[in-house]
């Protein structure tokens, strides 16, 4: 494809490699400066490490590690802004390392197949009719796993027309043994679904949530948004003030280092809630009439090193990458059937964040919203149980202080390390923590034996 080089093109090639040594660009004509930074029509190509069927003119080993492991997409002659942005960032990196890259033209699709997704619902209530019917437009394309809370006595009522598998107490006992099945009672029943799923992406919402509407009145497709979040890079190492730079109409702002613009894999996507926000019981009791009506139109990456309370009400994750880190571990002594009476998801989310930070994976928060219906009485929950609120005073400092050793390179290893640290540092504070630590170890063992897709090693 190469035409014979002209003197101008040879000059530009050489200038590229020595760009940082040129003291002053001002004598250059504008179109030359443009050429130095865009190179749109030149026969050069990027290599994608994700698509091994791609034909290369240079062996992959030729590229430095940082480029080899990054999620580079191919650029085409009709470049989308995403491709160009990645191109610019990789291009700058290449210059930095003094490597000349070749571009190629040909667009690769990043479409996710429907059969890569499982929607997993923990059924805390027996009548799922209206829930399923409201979500039908979003859910019916996908395979669903419904796990019935083992403590629930009534028969599940599920409408027709879905491709689903239902698991009940007897199934849980059969698969994991009745002594371990206690891990999966209450809200934690959904984790059984995570265990037996064979799909790459999992989306979970509480059974008292319905699709939300955006400010324009359109119904929010939470599934599609979660998938978008999981399949575009996260940017945990530097905060972008325009939030997710991979969203349409946004980008990295001035001052964002180019070497950080390719981002890292997003392992977890945390959505939000309109109407009943996920407040704890004291807050909701105090502000009985407060409802969340603010639709914040943003997705953002939670920065590395920063912990966050991840609500289980509306989440999605890459099971292949981070599955074992979502742990059904922290069971309050008085855990109940309202979210105000649980903290299992918060513990699980802190564990996932610590593991992701250690392994260089990303966690996003923000869109999509779901509509969370009014249910339960916060004052009743508060009177019954506010153990969870008190425990956070220990839990958060604990996770903030956890340091995972360099040798922990797989998600399972990381979870085991967190469990060990929890037993050492929190075990004597409250028996609930010793139980949580044990539950984490049991979970990892279960994952190894039952979760037959082995987790991929850390990226």
């Amino acid at each position, binding site marked *: 494809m190469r035409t014979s080089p002209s003197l101008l093109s040879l000059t530009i090639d050489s200038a590229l490699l020595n760009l940082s040594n040129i003291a002053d660009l*001002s004598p250059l004509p504008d179109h030359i*400066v443009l050429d130095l930074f865009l190179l749109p029509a030149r026969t050069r190509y990027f290599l994608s490490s994700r698509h091994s069927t791609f034909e290369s003119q240079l062996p992959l080993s030729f590229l430095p590690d940082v480029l080899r492991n990054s999620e580079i997409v191919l650029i085409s002659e009709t470049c989308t802004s995403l491709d160009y*942005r990645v191109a610019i960032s990789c291009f700058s990196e290449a210059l930095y390392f003094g490597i000349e890259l070749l571009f190629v033209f040909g667009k690769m699709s990043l479409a996710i197949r429907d059969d890569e997704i499982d929607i997993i619902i923990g059924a805390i209530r027996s009548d799922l009719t209206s829930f399923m019917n409201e979500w039908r437009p979003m859910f019916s394309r996908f395979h669903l796993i419904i796990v019935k809370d083992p403590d629930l006595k009534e028969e599940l009522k599920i409408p027709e027309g879905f491709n689903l598998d239902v698991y009940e107490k007897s199934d849980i006992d059969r698969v994991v043994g009745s002594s371990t099945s206690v891990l999966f009672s209450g809200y934690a029943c959904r984790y059984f679904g995570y265990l037996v799923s064979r799909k790459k992406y999992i989306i979970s919402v509480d059974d008292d949530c319905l699709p939300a509407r955006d400010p324009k009145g359109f119904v929010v497709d939470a599934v599609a948004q979660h998938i978008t979040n999981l399949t575009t890079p996260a940017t945990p190492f530097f905060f972008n003030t325009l939030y997710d730079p991979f969203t349409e109409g946004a*980008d990295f702002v*001035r001052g964002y280092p180019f*070497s950080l613009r390719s981002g890292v894999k997003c392992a977890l996507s945390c959505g939000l809630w309109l109407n009943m926000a*996920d407040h704890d019981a004291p807050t909701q009791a105090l502000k009985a009439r407060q409802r969340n009506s603010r639709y914040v139109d943003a997705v953002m990456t939670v920065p590395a090193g920063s912990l*966050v309370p991840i609500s289980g009400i509306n989440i999605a994750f890459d099971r292949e990458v981070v599955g074992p880190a979502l742990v059904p571990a922290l069971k309050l002594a008085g855990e109940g059937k309202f979210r105000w009476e649980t903290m299992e998801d918060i513990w699980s989310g802190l564990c996932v964040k610590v593991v992701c930070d250690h392994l260089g994976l990303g966690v996003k928060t923000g869109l999509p919203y779901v509509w969370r219906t009014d249910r339960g009485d916060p004052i009743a929950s508060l009177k019954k149980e506010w153990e969870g609120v008190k425990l956070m005073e220990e839990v958060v400092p604990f996770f903030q202080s956890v340091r995972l050793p360099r040798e922990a390179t797989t998600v399972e290893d990381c979870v085991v390390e967190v469990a060990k640290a929890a037993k050492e540092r929190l075990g004597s504070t409250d028996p609930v923590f010793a139980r949580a630590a044990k539950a984490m170890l049991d979970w990892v063992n279960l994952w190894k034996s039952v979760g037959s897709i082995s987790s991929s090693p850390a990226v």
Partner: protein
Amino acid sequence: MAEPATATEAAAPAVALLKDELDIVIPTIRNLDFLEMWRPFFQPYHLIIVQDGDPTKTIKVPEGFDYELYNRNDINRILGPKASCISFKDSACRCFGYMVSKKKYIYTIDDDCFVAKDPSGKAINALEQHIKNLLSPSTPFFFNTLYDPFREGADFVRGYPFSLREGVSTAVSHGLWLNIPDYDAPTQLVKPLERNTRYVDAVMTIPKGTLFPMCGMNLAFDRQLIGPAMYFGLMGDGQPIGRYDDMWAGWCIKVICDHLGLGVKTGLPYIYHSKASNPFVNLRKEYKGIYWQEEIIPFFQQAVLPKDCTSVQKCYIELAKQVKEKLSKVDPYFDKLADAMVTWIEAWDELNPTGAAVPNGKAK
């Protein structure tokens, strides 16, 4: 398609918050016509205008504003030899305004920024939102998924420890821009037509330990808490770099705020940024910065300030020392910059004697 509000659409608030405690600092080289549009929101406040470029040119200030104006001659006169730390031919000169102000709070805005409209069509009083941001606590130690818990209609989420709900003092409020986004030159060249039309209705605290690119176009801060660290560096005429003034200040203030337990917020309010600068001109100013920031960012990410740095000035001097030690090898410019940072603190302390060694918060 985002549009600015017109002068008649902007309605003055019933009460101008903090009107005797806040100065508005505006750098300008051309004219101040944009103030007409801001009149309902800005008129109650005192303005400090820093005139860059040719000091013989007269900058016309619209009638009815209470202001002080400084040109290069004034800067030289007031600072003497220390004036060398104030940039020339770059909006970085605005930090002179921070230094001479006598107020607790500063709001700074560029002269090509207009009043924006929120999604309901209402004109946004950016100054009022900044003040709300500064007067309510920040929460840098644990991320709240519902963003600023102190906003109307929001709160802390389940799992947020009660012991962290008091928050810390907010030192900086970083606002955003509709219409022309703050992109660097390469991005501008690739996407010359992109406009920011997304109104994200959130304010949030930037977590401790996380750096961010601070833009000086729409920025407010508590001068008493963090003022001495808001030095916008050596840019423009005679310097190898431009358009990194606010970035540099942003990295410095974030490290110091993290050290002293102060908060930095970003998000609302939006202003309407009307003028896209020439990307080729920007490229020439920025391109060294694009390479240098690969060294600068890790430097700031790893910077540790000793426990005995209990005031902003002490933190800043220490940072200057570390810049000289660790960044001079990247380019001799950083040597000069480190010296200028020290000169800046000396000048600040000279012009602000009573506030010289006020300890701000607890050093970590």
